[in-house]
């Protein structure tokens, strides 16, 4: 065993090696096996099995579960970096990983019951994959309203429920081991009084209603299902969904989605840079004209990175203070993050295509950017930006200046 040099050990507290570790392991999988299969995953619209076998093997699915339950205890920053690294190689892999970790964050922050604690240990031990059923056929992207409801099971003891949902999009539903489902608290509750219900493969049945054959993000296999579940009341996360969403699901979703999109943008810029360099080598001594567009793409990429890092910092500063997390200015910051980064990813990829010209437009060159563009277009639609902006504009009617740093 090599002892670390004294100076280095002092500089590196216990969390640092883990951080390097998570990002480095994700980068190796992203640049290796995920990138290698990205084209086939996209073409065939199939689940990125190889990448997820590798993620399981590297124990990266349970990496955000606290160490006391056998997980890696990774921070949101580390997981965001992992989403980015995976998406550089295969956007669908990055997005599935992001969606999985969003569900983990909800469970970790709000799963206080014994049932949830057992599940956390199981996730870490068995590297289970978690999916999400928020979208409902009747309400679409209006995920803060549900039609389906948790029904107390009259045939059983008091503590059991049943739940049926017309879930029009559940990404990787076939591969999921656990699904988190939004529903009304009970059959009499108004549509906005929701809870988040955790069900495992043993508790639910999925009947496929639609197949995902989409422009991009094809490997997410975001099929539609009719979900029927039964379980014990203890499986329902105790905090109302509105609070859970404000404190965890919304900020973590927008941070991890944005990090994934940043990975798409970063790979597009890498390709554009490689193209410009190859042009420069052909005419030594001159800077290719296309380099101007590369500079534009690079500036936008930097902008994207900045908004994401600022949001992660804001989340870190607010976490631990439910009061700040449920405040209006925090919600606005997290919602605008999604809108800004989802527009920027498309702009970056477009600038990269302009840089490469036909070499980027064609599907058969090392600079091909068609898949990146198609994947990037999902960003603005994944909870429609117009829906988010219209919500923000209402909230702004009552917002005040904050009193924290930079406010």
């Amino acid at each position, binding site marked *: 065993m090599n002892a670390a040099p004294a100076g280095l050990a002092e500089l590196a507290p216990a969390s640092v090696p883990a951080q390097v570790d998570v990002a480095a392991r994700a980068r190796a999988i992203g640049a290796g096996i995920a990138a290698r299969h990205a084209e086939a995953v996209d073409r065939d619209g199939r689940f990125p099995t190889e990448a997820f076998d590798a993620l399981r093997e590297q124990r990266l699915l349970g990496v955000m579960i606290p160490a006391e339950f056998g997980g890696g205890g990774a921070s949101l920053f580390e997981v965001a970096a992992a989403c980015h690294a995976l998406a550089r190689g295969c956007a669908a892999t990055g997005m599935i990983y992001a969606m999985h970790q969003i569900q983990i964050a909800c469970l970790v922050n709000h799963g206080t019951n014994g049932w949830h604690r057992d599940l956390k240990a199981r996730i870490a031990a068995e590297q289970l994959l978690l999916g999400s059923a928020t979208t409902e056929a009747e309400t679409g992207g209006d995920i803060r309203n549900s039609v389906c409801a948790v029904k107390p099971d009259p045939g059983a003891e008091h503590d059991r429920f049943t739940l049926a949902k017309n879930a029009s999009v559940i990404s990787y539903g076939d591969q999921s081991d656990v699904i988190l489902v939004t529903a009304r608290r009970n059959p009499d509750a108004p549509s906005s009084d929701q809870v988040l219900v955790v069900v495992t493969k043993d508790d639910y049945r999925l009947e496929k209603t639609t197949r995902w054959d989409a422009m991009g993000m094809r490997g997410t296999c975001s099929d539609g299902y009719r979900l029927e579940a039964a379980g014990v009341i203890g499986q329902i996360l105790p905090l109302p969904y*509105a609070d859970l969403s404000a404190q965890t699901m919304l900020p973590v979703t927008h941070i991890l989605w944005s990090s994934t999109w940043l990975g798409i943008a970063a790979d597009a810029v890498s390709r554009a840079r490689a193209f410009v360099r190859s042009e420069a080598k052909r005419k030594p001594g001159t800077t290719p004209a296309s380099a101007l567009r590369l500079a534009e793409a690079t500036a936008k990429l930097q902008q994207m990175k900045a908004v994401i890092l600022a949001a992660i910092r804001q989340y870190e500063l607010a976490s631990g203070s439910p*009061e700040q997390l449920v405040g*209006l200015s925090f919600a606005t910051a997290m919602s605008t993050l999604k809108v800004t980064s989802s527009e920027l990813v498309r702009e970056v990829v477009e600038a990269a295509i302009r840089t490469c010209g036909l070499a980027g437009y064609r599907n058969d060159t090392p600079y091909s950017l068609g898949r990146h563009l198609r994947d990037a277009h999902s960003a603005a639609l994944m909870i429609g930006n117009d829906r988010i902006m219209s*919500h923000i504009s209402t909230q702004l009617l*009552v*917002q005040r200046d904050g009193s924290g740093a930079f406010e």
Partner: protein
Amino acid sequence: MIAGIRSVLAECGGLAVDAETLAINDDLYAAGLTSHGCVGLMLGLEEEFDVEFPEKLLNRRTFESIAAIRDAVRGLVDGGEA
């Protein structure tokens, strides 16, 4: 004050039920109050009671029941700042 709050709730809260039937400790979110509804409710309360809600009161807890709203408004009327 409670009567004033009820009338603002009925007018601006967009509830699923009649505001007159709610007890003062009933959960307004269970009665259908949404974040959208909160905005209308808050603007209505500011108009009705001539107060201004500061940043730190702009969260779900402030509007969770008629009693919670009463406490917040009372704080604002009495102290300027809650």
